[in-house]
């Protein structure tokens, strides 16, 4: 396939924004339905009391906090990856960055709702905010939940701007092509972008700064999420490995989510000529590295517990290794390592389909990992008399399903309003020097997937 002219690209990439198929609307209705069901479930929980959920003594945290950690982790897909690639100036990143950053923003927003959902009295959630209240009470800075509050807000600001800034020129692009109401809307959101060299240059340097700033923020966010656990003297929680362990897991699940999202976009928005196998291959390699890193962390964690042989920790250890939680544990290992490793390691298997299969495994596996970090420890905390177990109720399951649906829903809506691939960045790929941008280089066995 020959390189395309900038105008052709623009047309291709703006095409998804015009009109929507029946299939699209059905899917939208489907996911919307699930989200509404989840909202009802939450309403019921607020009305009837948190007791309608399955959490109990001593497992005071269950699905909700699992989802919290999982989604925050997923949010490390975009910003972190695209920031790193941006700094590394990897040209092939250009078609990938935006769909990644979108995942970040949505996953983060979804994850951030769970600390509220899981509250006993959610209507008082605002007591967490450090504002001068008439009660003269300030929140407790020493609580990791407060750290979460600050970290998540910073990360949210960072990732939202990181997503929005590069969107401005594309907004202008649509503005100039649109008519009527859409024109008005897009001229508002393109905030008077004209494309003067000054604007271009300031945008670039702003993105550079953002890229530098957002990486440490992303790392800190998931470290702090891990400290929600590591700060408590709970067997197998109270460990220094948690922060890097969580960050690694976060990036791991993030990349997986990105691959899945790209595959879906590629199929449904007909972006076969823009999201190429090379992108999946490169991300696949990244995923492989993370999979190995993840395994290394799990091994290190397990080893130290086993060797230390501290009774209360060993109880948790055996419960996950051979006891009642072992099926989930080994399923996790299969999903996170046994499946992805060969697929991604063997070049022949590292096709788009291969990468997607591996990624699906990883997403499931990482959710299980969060669950297995939280529940077994809580259910086997020191005094055997108060050991307990945990079963989620339909409320928790519905709300969990709802968040996945919400992710799909938001993503679909977004891809209908904004070009999911940054057009100007794609065009700006240095063609004149390096001939074709790698992104548009003809790659063998295109139909391999």
């Amino acid at each position: 396939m020959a390189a395309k002219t900038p105008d052709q690209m623009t047309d291709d990439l703006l095409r998804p924004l015009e009109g929507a198929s029946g299939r699209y609307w059905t899917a939208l209705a489907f996911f919307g339905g699930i989200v509404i069901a989840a909202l009802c479930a939450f309403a019921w929980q607020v009305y009837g009391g948190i007791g309608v959920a399955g959490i109990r003594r001593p497992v005071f945290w269950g699905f909700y906090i699992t989802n919290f950690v999982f989604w925050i982790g997923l949010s490390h897909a975009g910003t972190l990856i695209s920031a790193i690639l941006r700094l590394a100036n990897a040209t092939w990143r250009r078609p990938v960055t935006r769909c990644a950053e979108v995942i970040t923003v949505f996953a983060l927003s979804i994850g951030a709702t769970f600390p509220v959902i899981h509250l006993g009295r959610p209507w008082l959630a605002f007591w967490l905010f450090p504002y001068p209240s008439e009660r003269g009470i300030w929140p407790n800075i020493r609580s990791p939940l407060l750290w979460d509050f600050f970290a998540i807000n910073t990360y949210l600001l960072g990732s939202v701007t990181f997503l929005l800034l590069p969107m401005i020129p594309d907004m202008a692009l649509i503005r100039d092509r649109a008519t009527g109401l859409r024109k008005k809307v897009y001229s508002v959101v393109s905030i008077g972008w004209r494309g003067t060299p000054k604007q271009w240059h300031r945008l670039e340097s702003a993105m550079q700064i953002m890229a530098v700033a957002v990486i440490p923020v992303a790392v800190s966010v998931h470290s702090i999420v891990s400290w929600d656990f590591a700060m408590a003297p709970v067997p197998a929680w109270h460990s220094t490995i948690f922060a890097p362990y969580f960050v690694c897991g976060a990036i791991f699940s993030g990349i997986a989510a990105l691959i899945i999202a790209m595959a879906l976009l590629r199929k449904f928005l007909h972006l076969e000529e823009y999201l190429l196998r090379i992108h999946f291959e490169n991300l696949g390699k990244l995923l492989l590295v993370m999979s190995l890193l993840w395994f290394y962390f799990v091994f290190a964690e397990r080893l130290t517990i086993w060797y230390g042989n501290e009774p209360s920790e060993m109880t948790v250890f055996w419960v996950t290794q051979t006891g009642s939680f072992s099926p989930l544990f080994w399923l996790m290992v299969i999903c996170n390592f046994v499946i992805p490793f060969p697929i991604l390691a063997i070049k022949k298997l590292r096709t788009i389909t291969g990468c997607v299969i591996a990624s699906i495994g990883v997403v499931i596996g990482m959710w299980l990992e969060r669950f297995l970090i939280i529940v077994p420890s809580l259910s086997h905390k020191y005094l055997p008399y108060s050991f307990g177990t945990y079963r989620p109720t339909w409320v928790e399951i519905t709300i969990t399903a709802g968040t996945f649906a919400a992710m799909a829903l938001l993503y679909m809506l977004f891809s209908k309003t904004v070009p999911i691939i940054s057009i100007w960045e794609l065009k700006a790929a240095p063609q004149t020097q390096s001939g074709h941008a790698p992104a548009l280089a003809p790659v063998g066995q295109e139909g391999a997937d």
Partner: protein
Amino acid sequence: MAHQWGMVIDLDRCTGCEACVVACHAENNISTVGEDQAARGRAKHWIRVERYFEGEFPDLKTKFMPVLCQQCDAAPCEPVCPTFASYHTIEGLNGQVYNRCIGTRYCANACPYNVRFFNWYNPEWEKPLNLQLNPDVSIREVGIMEKCTFCVQRIKAGEIQAAAEKRALKDGEVQPACVQSCPTKAMVFGDLSDPDSEVSRLARGNRGTKLLGELGTLPKVTYLQKDSWHGSENA
């Protein structure tokens, strides 16, 4: 200086009769949750008697251990609370401000002793059972963490009484409901800041141990370990 309330539990005296458990329910307006919720781990017993078996039939030893909030000096439950609902009182108690609690349940996870109990639903007393409620103790609504207070309402009442009579509290003058009820006098309550109080003396004894003391929570409850029969010679 402020009192430092502490307790000693003599496992050699405790017979696991659970008078303390019911006395605590009666004193502190702890609601019963019914069979279904109890089956789902929602029963609330601020003090419980843990039972452990050692060995197999016929050589079997049984051990009772009453467990209540240890009122730790370095309490893991306190700092994790984002709203200061759980905090440390001047008299060394792990206070729980009910109406400040938003129900993160973080404190309950952090507590190694599992002595914090959560109100999963609004409590109910079928009329006229509501008439049994103790007016000195507030009722906890849904979504709130509750826990043993060492019967702070009794402590305060005692202190006010003593202050009114312009005197210091006498040792043993104030007793939580559990201590008051204990038939074998296995539980002793008092001021640890007073080295001569009975509780201080017993806590210094060589049988004294702290529950999960290795975690560095500095509990203010001391357990006197079960003693063994020293044989005929002491007869």
